[in-house]
């Protein structure tokens, strides 16, 4: 079995979100970068678990990003995976990124392609669905569990107000979220091994950008909290009813 895990580099969840160039650019100064949590905690760890069960499994990691994405992909390799591919380009357009990954997938013929359910920076939630359409494979979104027996995957996915269990034969593209696996901490052996694992750098395929970010904005600050005494709960209810019109 051959698995591709898509890895994205995102700012740490505690990073201060600020913009430079009059709102044109994300302010990167002082920002710590991490593996997108959905990619790391769920897709990557699930792929590693599948390899632990069946050591013949091959795991490739792929990231679309500049040289500054290499520490992130090395960190991912320290958790597991056999080799990594970095496609040497940067973009905020989901289609451009997905088309790069689909081009790799077209030659490598993966059985499973895992993505996170979204990245925590652009919140696109689109890469998996686009790759699936481009390679013409079934797409299962928002998975909360992934099991495989031979070439038949049994996947639980979130639907509105519940979950649905589906079966599908590989190849399949799956976007992962909580439930698929549990977060792991890399150990020293993994970190050492990651240094010598192959990291291939590919130049991007000629693809189109369909969108571009014009500018960023921060939300307007809150006016400030109105405190109500715990002995005067009726007053809170009145405010919620009359002032906020929320109940």
């Amino acid at each position: 079995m051959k698995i591709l895990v898509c890895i994205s580099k995102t700012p740490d969840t505690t990073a201060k979100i600020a913009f430079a160039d009059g709102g044109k650019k994300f302010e990167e100064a002082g920002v710590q970068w991490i593996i997108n949590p959905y990619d790391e905690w769920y897709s990557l760890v699930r792929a590693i678990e599948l390899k632990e069960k069946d050591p013949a499994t091959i795991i490739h990691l792929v990231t679309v990003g500049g040289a500054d994405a290499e520490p992130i992909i090395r960190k991912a390799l320290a958790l597991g995976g056999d080799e990594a591919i970095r496609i040497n380009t940067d973009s905020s357009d989901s289609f451009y990124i997905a088309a790069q990954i689909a081009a790799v997938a077209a030659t490598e013929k993966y059985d499973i392609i895992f993505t996170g359910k979204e990245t925590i920076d652009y919140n696109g939630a689109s890469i998996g669905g686009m790759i699936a359409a481009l390679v013409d494979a079934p797409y299962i979104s928002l998975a909360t569990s992934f099991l495989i027996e031979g070439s038949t995957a049994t996947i639980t996915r979130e639907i509105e107000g519940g979950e649905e269990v589906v079966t599908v034969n590989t190849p399949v593209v799956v976007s992962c979220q909580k439930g698929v696996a549990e977060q792991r901490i890399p150990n020293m052996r993994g970190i050492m091994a990651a240094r010598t694992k192959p990291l291939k750098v590919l130049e991007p395929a000629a693809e189109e950008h369909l969108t571009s970010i014009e500018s960023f904005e921060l939300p307007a600050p809150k006016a400030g909290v109105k405190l109500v005494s715990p002995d005067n709960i009726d007053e809170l209810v009145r405010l919620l009813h009359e002032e906020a019109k929320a109940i």
Partner: protein
Amino acid sequence: MVLVYIDHQDNQIKKSTLEAVTYGVALAKQLGTEAHGLVLGNVNDDLAALGAYELKNVYQINDVALAHFDAQVFVKTIAAAATKVGATTLVFSHNQTGKAVCAGVSALLKAGLVTGAIELPKTDAGFVVKKTVFSGKAFANVSIQTAIKIISLSPNSFHTTTGAAATASITPLDIPVSAGHVKVSAVNKTSGEISLTEADIVVSGGRGLKGPENWGILLDLAKELGAATACSRPVGDAHWRPHHEHVGQTGVQVAPNLYIAIGISGAIQHLAGVNRSKTIVVINKDPEAPFFKAADYGIVGDAFEVLPKLTDAIKKMKASA
């Protein structure tokens, strides 16, 4: 033409879909064109009644292969339908189904996509859509450069307006539908619960409630308000509550009219998923809890005392209203 994807579940049209319909109709007016709907499969709800939202017409594709959801099949069918009817803008709701299909349609049509839109686009020069980024900590204005545009609308961002005295026509559309590869073997509905992303009011509990055995007072409040229930990440991780209730940067992102946070400290990752709520109420015994900085109303007090009193006060208010 603006084509709105009419999503349905259990034979009913979802609230988030009605928001997308309202949005699509407003967008069509802005662009000087018409809004039509597209529905795949059978719905019991009266599609003609969508005329009340000023939708002119609904295209309907019926095929046995559409009886259950398979993203690959739906994507191909929607893309073919959009081409056949000459849609220039497609609108989806950014709900679970929208997330499963809009990206694939974008890739097949090579149509620029903005997911999680929160406003109508600016179309005076170009086509620029505002969406949330950094899990609600900021917004981005994204320009779509392709002739065909696709928008998926963040639930609870756009209020439905209805009341037009009109009915929509229903036009069967003949599109060949390919057989799918996905078999649905079980559906587990958390029946009776209000969907978290669609709820008007969300009541959410954190570690301050000490243990799952104490959730009764929170559920009582939620029931009285007709609210959905949510929780902080450690509460989900400890299995005090089902993990689909976990909200925040790495959980579900919500934007209800009212969010009530009980015994939640207000960590930056939690706030990221809830700070688009219109009104935020925080109940916490620590006056220094960071959540108060993001709140509109707050009570510094012990949740175990405050909650039952709050539920009673709401009952009283309702009785006198």
